[in-house]
């Protein structure tokens, strides 16, 4: 491994790192919102909408991100819907992540025992009070492990962006390997930057999970 090569590559990776993080964070934010909205709509069985959103969840949960991105980036322009690679990445992660998050929230909501509903109603709460003060907080903490897993999964999935020529970490590594053939150095930096990006999320996620678990069950 050549230290000079590493140093000369470093700024390129830093740039790519921030682009990856930016697209990842915005995408995950959208995914989170999409997930909550879809889970609510499916949970409350809103007519028509709940069918559409269930179809969306199943469709995006059961297809690879790479295929989704190819469809959005290369397929949709033929219908006159043309978007930049960066927006495409955000939309892709948002839609894919939304379906995963929705599934996480849905299983959280269905894990809240029915006695909580009855208890809240017996205390004289209205339907909306019951949902927002009792059911949703419980369901949310039950879904924390799924949310953490999804965030890590989505951050990893950002590596697929390189396929639509978004200059992310993966693309930078591929580009540098193709240009200068310093494979070892390029791949080493790639691994280092992904560790720097995802390891803290993994550690913080574990801590949050433990804390929520403690608050709920006392162990």
């Amino acid at each position, binding site marked *: 491994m050549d230290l000079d090569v590493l140093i000369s590559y470093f700024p390129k990776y830093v740039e790519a790192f921030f682009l990856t993080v930016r697209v990842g964070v915005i995408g995950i934010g959208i995914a989170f919102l999409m997930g909550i909205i879809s889970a609510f709509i499916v949970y409350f069985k809103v007519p028509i909408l709940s069918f559409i959103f269930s179809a969306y969840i199943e469709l995006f949960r059961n*297809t690879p991100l*790479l*295929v989704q991105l*190819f469809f959005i980036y290369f397929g949709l322009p*033929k*219908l006159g819907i043309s978007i930049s690679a960066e927006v495409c990445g955000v939309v892709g992660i948002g839609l894919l992540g939304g379906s995963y998050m929705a599934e996480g929230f849905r299983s959280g909501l269905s894990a809240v025992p029915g006695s909580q509903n009855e208890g809240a109603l017996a205390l004289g709460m209205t339907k909306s009070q019951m949902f927002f003060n009792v059911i949703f907080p419980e369901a949310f903490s039950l879904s924390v492990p799924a949310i953490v897993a999804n965030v890590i999964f989505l951050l990893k999935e950002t*590596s697929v962006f*390189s396929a639509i020529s978004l200059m992310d970490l993966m693309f930078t590594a591929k580009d540098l390997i193709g240009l200068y053939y310093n494979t070892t150095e390029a791949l080493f930096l790639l691994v280092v930057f992904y560790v720097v990006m995802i390891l803290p999320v993994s550690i913080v996620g574990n801590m949050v999970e433990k804390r929520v678990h403690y608050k709920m069950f006392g162990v």
Partner: protein
Amino acid sequence: MGFEVLLKGSNMSRLLVGLAVALRISMISVAISIVLGVILGSLMTLKNPVIKVVSKIYLEFIRIMPQMVLLFLVFFGTTKALGINMSADTASIIVFSLWGTAEMSDLVRGALSGIPKIQYESSFSLGMTTAQTYIHVIIPQIIRRMLPLSINLVTRMIKTTSLVMMIGIVEVLKVGQQIIEANRKSSPNAAFGVYATIFILYFLVCWPISILSKYLEKKWES
């Protein structure tokens, strides 16, 4: 809309052959992952500090590394650093088995450590031998806990193998690109039709499997 290009010649069957290439890789990797995952998962329940540290590092590394990076590490990295020259097929099977084994072993460990000690003790006090305890009491429970999750792993494996096109394997997406390129003049909108078809194909493969997994999970929950 570009769908008509798939009806020309053998284009549709070429796409399906491409899909089969991706599915073959995922099935081989799943088989390897299940065997190695069960072994590693059982080892992890032993209280051996060396196994614990090694498996912890292995699991965490796989957990935070994108599969695409692992593919590049194995396919390009080993060639350059160690001089090993392997086919893209072999590299992808190695990567997906490494990933699958990590996921599977974690499931096995979770299922094994979730079985309360009292199950073993009661079986022994009923006069069962260790073998009988495992065959009649422990393993049936583990299978019930693990099967839905492992079936889920199959769909994830199938979805992830779409990445193999990035190291040059001609699978369904690559075939799709070739069809689009070849028909650039005659049907300029082929990209929409072809990619929409691939989208639907993947859905048709993964959806039934994930329904099965959900069904089993519900059935065995109570």
